[in-house]
């Protein structure tokens, strides 16, 4: 069984990495600027927005999956796009789960030293955009762990991706849904072995990421 899984396993790992990479990338591109904006500015309703992102951090994945499913279902508003049961729609569901995490964490990190940085930026006559970039670069290390949290949530998620992705063999099956499938088949040991592989993948990504941060510091 393990041997016949070899080619398929590599394909599943490929889909998993592709999905997690794009979910993380898009979530960070959307969430970080918003988080910085919240961190550096003060306006009415800011507290509510932050509380909302905190609330959505607790959004059950299956619920996110259901919402995305209904949107892209045949009779849904976006049904005509015909992308249900594809990796693309899995990324969309993932972003729904991860963007609030990224916004909330980015806000927490950047708000700590925002006053000081804004002062510096004023002194240097920085534009608003440049100030935001300064806040991102000054908090680089902390923000890197936000990226890793986003990646971690993405690679470990199962409820939403099985619902909108469908766990289709050779197409939308990822590590977590493969583990679920093997568990349902009764192959508990094999499922556990897949779980360990998933952890190894995560470990590798973390090692690469920490090297990247170190390189950057030097």
């Amino acid at each position, binding site marked *: 069984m*393990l041997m016949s899984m070899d080619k398929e396993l590599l394909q599943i790992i490929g889909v998993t990495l592709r999905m997690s990479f794009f979910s993380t990338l898009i979530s960070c591109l959307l969430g970080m600027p918003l988080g910085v904006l919240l961190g550096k500015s003060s306006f009415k309703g800011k507290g509510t927005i932050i509380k909302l992102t905190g609330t959505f951090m607790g959004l059950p994945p299956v619920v996110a999956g259901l919402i995305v499913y209904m949107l892209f279902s*045949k009779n849904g508003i976006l049904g005509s796009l015909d992308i249900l049961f594809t990796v693309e729609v899995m990324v969309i569901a993932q972003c729904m789960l991860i963007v609030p995490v990224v916004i909330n964490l980015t806000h927490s990190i950047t708000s700590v030293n925002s006053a000081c940085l804004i002062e510096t930026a004023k002194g240097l006559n920085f534009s608003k955009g440049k100030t935001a970039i300064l806040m991102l670069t000054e908090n680089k290390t902390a923000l890197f762990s936000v990226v890793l949290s986003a990646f971690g949530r993405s690679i470990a998620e199962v409820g939403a991706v099985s619902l909108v992705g469908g*766990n289709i*063999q050779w197409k939308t099956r990822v590590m977590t849904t493969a583990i679920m499938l093997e568990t349902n088949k009764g192959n*508990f040991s094999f*499922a556990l072995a897949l779980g*360990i*592989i998933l952890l190894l993948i995560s470990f590798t990504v973390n090692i690469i990421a920490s090297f990247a941060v170190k390189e950057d510091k030097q």
Partner: protein
Amino acid sequence: MKKLLAVLMALAIVFTLAACGGTSENENKIIRVSTTTSVNDSGLLPYLLPVFEEATGYTVEVQSAGTGAAIQKAKDGNADLILVHSKASEEEFIAEGYGVERLPFMYNYFVIVGPADDPAGIKDSVNAAEAFDKIEDTEATFISRGDESGTHKAELKIWGEDVPEADDEWYISAGQGMGACLTMASEKDAYCLTDKATFLSNKADLDLEIILAEGEDMKNTYSLIECNPEKLDGINTEGAKAFIEWMMGDEASALIAEYGKEAYGEALFYLAE
């Protein structure tokens, strides 16, 4: 890669064995039934159990999963009896010494469901094998359970020698439960093999019709198997025997024969002769 997998597999087995180490105190009034989703989700067990519990004073704990997982849980000593529908797996379960005896007690039929306009024209097929051939010839989309469940094994038996490749565009191996596969079939205007009970109980949310309902290769037999106390520790043998006896007795038979008539206008399960 293979070596790595072998090592991981070994590790995983060690973990599993470690997890199986402790046996719990056997409570005589609790019967653990490991069953497939079709029996539980169709509402049959929730309908029967209160009557049994009332009559005997036992409490029945039902775990429902795909046939593969249902059997594995029993092999791990976590059930007193199983109620499943996959003859080959059941016989293996007994051959390996985990089960005492296979008792077929009821059956129903698998049906092929699909879009109402029947694009592959399978409506008048004499059996499921012919219908599957037509689906393959026209490359109409087909959703396979792909999860080694009883229904998936029935699919494979109908395909016979030439099971389609899962990378064929039209053949989708979903690896999910019956409900999820039916939803997918509805979304993709696809065909799907399902037990009738699950289909009828989900029909309201689905854009699917029963296209082929009769055929000698579509019979779906459910069996009860008592777990073997000589092989497994902590089995409530008395409870399992009492449950099996009741399920095969007159009272349960009458209830099973009636089940579904009120809600769907027809019985969902028939008693085995």
